[in-house]
């Protein structure tokens, strides 16, 4: 299990290799930071919120999203192809019967393009080790009390896919526009640790 890398041997080695590559003219100074900035640019929970709002108002889109998320999110102008290669996206939707929650128990895999950088708690060992064993208890600590009859599905991002949860549409939102609906959606809702 990996934790904090900032002062580790591997970090020092990476910095050393970076300096060597720059010294030999194979890498421009700051090029890696630039590539990382590029990768992060536009990554924000607002993207996940837009996808969610569209899924709430358009049942056809919701169906396409759950079947093949990579293709469906192009309909709202988003993509998982911002990195070196397109990452597979798996979207799961909450219902009255089933609540989904996402974790990466091995490290901190996360759909940065759709949700921005991950919150600190998502990377904590406490969350990663506990939510697979006792999701109901962990969600309660987040202030989310689920009815006993609601089944909980935990998704462990242990390989190459990235995950996003479509929360349930709140009651009494029939008159809201798609944009207003998107404003209701939180980052925690898209991970599954909040209702919306």
């Amino acid at each position, binding site marked *: 299990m990996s934790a904090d890398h900032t002062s580790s041997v591997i970090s020092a080695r990476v910095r050393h290799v970076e300096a060597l590559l720059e010294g030999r003219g194979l890498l421009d100074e700051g090029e890696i930071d630039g590539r990382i900035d590029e990768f992060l640019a536009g990554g924000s929970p607002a993207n996940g919120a837009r996808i969610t709002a569209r899924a709430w108002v358009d049942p056809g889109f919701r169906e396409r999203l759950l079947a093949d998320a990579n293709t469906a999110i192009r309909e709202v102008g988003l993509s998982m192809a911002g990195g070196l290669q397109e990452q*597979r996206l*798996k979207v799961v939707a909450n219902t009255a019967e089933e609540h989904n929650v996402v974790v990466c*128990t*091995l490290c901190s895999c996360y759909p940065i393009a759709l949700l921005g950088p991950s919150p600190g708690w998502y990377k904590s060992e406490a969350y990663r080790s506990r939510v*697979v*064993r*006792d*999701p*109901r208890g962990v969600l309660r600590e987040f202030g989310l009390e689920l009815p006993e009859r609601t*089944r*909980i*599905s*935990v*998704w*462990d*991002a*242990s*390989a*190459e*896919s990235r995950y996003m949860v479509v929360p349930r549409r709140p009651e009494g939102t029939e008159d809201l526009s798609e944009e207003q609906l998107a404003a209701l959606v939180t980052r925690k809702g898209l991970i599954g640790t909040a209702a919306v």
Partner: protein
Amino acid sequence: MAELAPGMRVRTRTADPEGHTRLPRYARGAVGVLVEQAGVHPLADDRARGRAASPQQVWHVRFAAADLFGSGDHTVTVELWADYLTPIEEPA
């Protein structure tokens, strides 16, 4: 050995390899059900060791929490390479 297919019951590898693996310890030697395919990728264990690895099928595998931890009524769906999985022969 039967070809892996959705709905099939599988057992995960029990070995604890030296170095990197993407089979989480809590899901080792456990029985789960194949839910759906999750792309085709070289085995992460090999890549971490600098070995050539040909792409293989990755699966979403669903486990009952009670089978993993001895308690709990939820499920945990883990994403696992085919190499980690052995089909369970169902009695005819």
